């Protein structure tokens, strides 16, 4: 981005027509957003890994139940999946 992004502040205590103020983001706010972006990506990766781990554990548990002789219907009945 070459243009500095802005924030639009709507002050609801003021009369209509006088509420809106467009303010360029400060260097500190831009840095905060960059930190937020990096954290969001880390959060996304962590969530996806946690979900992948959960699904892998679920599949492994079903295999073990099947090895014990349970049918697919019986496994579904006790696991709900």
């Amino acid at each position: 981005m070459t243009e500095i992004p802005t924030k639009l502040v709507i002050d609801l205590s003021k009369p209509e027509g006088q509420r809106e103020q467009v303010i360029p983001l400060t260097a500190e706010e831009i840095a905060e957003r960059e930190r937020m972006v990096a954290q969001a990506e880390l959060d996304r990766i962590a969530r996806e890994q946690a979900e992948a781990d959960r699904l892998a554990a679920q599949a492994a548990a079903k295999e073990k139940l099947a090895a014990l002789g349970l049918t697919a219907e019986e496994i579904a009945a006790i696991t709900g999946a």
Partner: protein
Amino acid sequence: MPMTLVGTVELPSSTTNSIQFTNIPQTGKELIAVASCRSTVAGIQDALALFINDVTTASYNEIRLRGLGGSTNALQSTGSTRIQYPVLAASGATANIFGNTSYRFLNYTNSNHKQIVIESVGENNAASAHQIIVNGYLNTSAITKLEFADISGNVFVQYSSISLYILS
């Protein structure tokens, strides 16, 4: 309960990263926000981050139920620094579509932790994602400010809009 529009904005250009409503009237029982936004960031979808009262500490718990194409899933997170699951259409999505989200802030003026129910959809015509989100905001202060931001750090496209209503 009567529903009153207290503020609305439609962006005249693609230069804004953050839309903030301040000094929200404390005269209602519930607060409703309706957002229709698209980001300039690459990709199909982005996230519309929401901060309440400038709180950016670990104060937001979320559980999300999502339908994405032919699959569904549920995700949860605790101790987030923002509400982060609502979708925002991005530049790779079908032309001229927006991510649409409604927020319902229950008992927003009281002195208990707040409950927020969110319904959000990214209307990409190739594979839509519809999600319902329940959020707990772990703060007892009345809600007086809402900030909606493009989590990618990019900007909202022209004609993105957000409206705020109170139910009284």
